């Protein structure tokens, strides 16, 4: 009996989804606000990359919330891992010379790529979140390749908190200058140059450092715990 009811419910849900999906036109702009951003985004924000201008300028407050969610997740993971008793440091076999040298020489180039991605967030695709994730993957490579190398937990925390603070301070500076939180109070400059788009590059550098240190902290905690 329960199976039949479940099957009937499943069919009803599938029919509902199917019927509503046929009603939605595909690849047709459904909102007018998208066209507005594409037409006026470069003039109003100075960022050539429209996605960045939406993420950090029109919807900057949402991004602050997003960063806060990531911060809370990292803090919660840290709190869970802190309750686990730390075992005395185990000896592990050092990795081979080829592996550790390869990881160590690739590491700065990956960091450079990450820095390029979040510095050019307002010009080319990418930004703080992507750059931060690439920073974390560079640290993951070092953690897996040369296992005796570790990042200091205190420096991770310091970078994370100061980057978050910079984001909020810039938001409040906008509030003080013009009356809106996260207002783009710096000159917008010439579009398509590195020093343009006002506060967007500064915030993206802060987000890059913050996301990178948060994800590195998560990986650091997990690897330390699993050893």
């Amino acid at each position, binding site marked *: 009996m329960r199976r039949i009811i479940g099957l009937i419910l499943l069919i009803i849900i599938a029919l509902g989804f199917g019927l509503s999906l046929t009603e939605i036109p595909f690849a047709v702009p459904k909102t007018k606000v998208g066209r507005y951003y594409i037409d006026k985004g470069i003039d109003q924000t100075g960022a050539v990359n429209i996605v960045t201008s939406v993420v950090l300028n029109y919807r900057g407050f949402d991004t602050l919330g997003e960063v806060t969610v990531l911060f809370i997740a990292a803090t919660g993971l840290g709190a869970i891992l802190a309750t686990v008793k730390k075992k005395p440091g185990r000896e592990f076999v050092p990795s081979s010379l080829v592996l550790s040298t390869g990881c160590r020489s690739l590491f700065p180039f990956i960091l450079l790529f990450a820095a390029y*991605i979040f510095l050019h967030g307002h010009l080319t*695709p*990418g930004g703080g979140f992507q750059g931060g994730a690439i920073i974390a993957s560079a640290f993951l490579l070092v953690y897996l390749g040369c296992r005796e190398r570790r990042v200091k937990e205190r420096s991770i925390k310091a970078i994370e908190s100061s980057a978050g603070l910079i984001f909020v301070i810039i938001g409040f500076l906008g509030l003080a200058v013009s009356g809106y939180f996260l207002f783009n109070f710096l000159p917008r400059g010439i579009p398509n140059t590195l020093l343009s788009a006002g506060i967007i590059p500064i915030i993206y550098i802060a987000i890059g450092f913050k996301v990178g240190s948060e994800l590195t902290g998560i*990986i650091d905690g997990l*690897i330390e715990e699993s050893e």
Partner: protein
Amino acid sequence: MIFIVLLVFVMLVAAISACIFSDLLSAVIACCIVSLIAAILFFLLQAPDVAMAEASIGAALVTAIFVIAIRRTKREE
């Protein structure tokens, strides 16, 4: 066009096999393949921002975190 169809087909196979595999490590690798092909598809659909986030987080970091977590569990055949 054929390339996209092939990618979607491989993605479907990987997604279904991630559910079927009884070995957790193989399932995680199948999930990684799904994320990687999703990143390529995002790029082909002209969303490079999303593609970069998907490739670095979905394919690299999530896989690493899952593998670290699975290392702590016991393996039963």
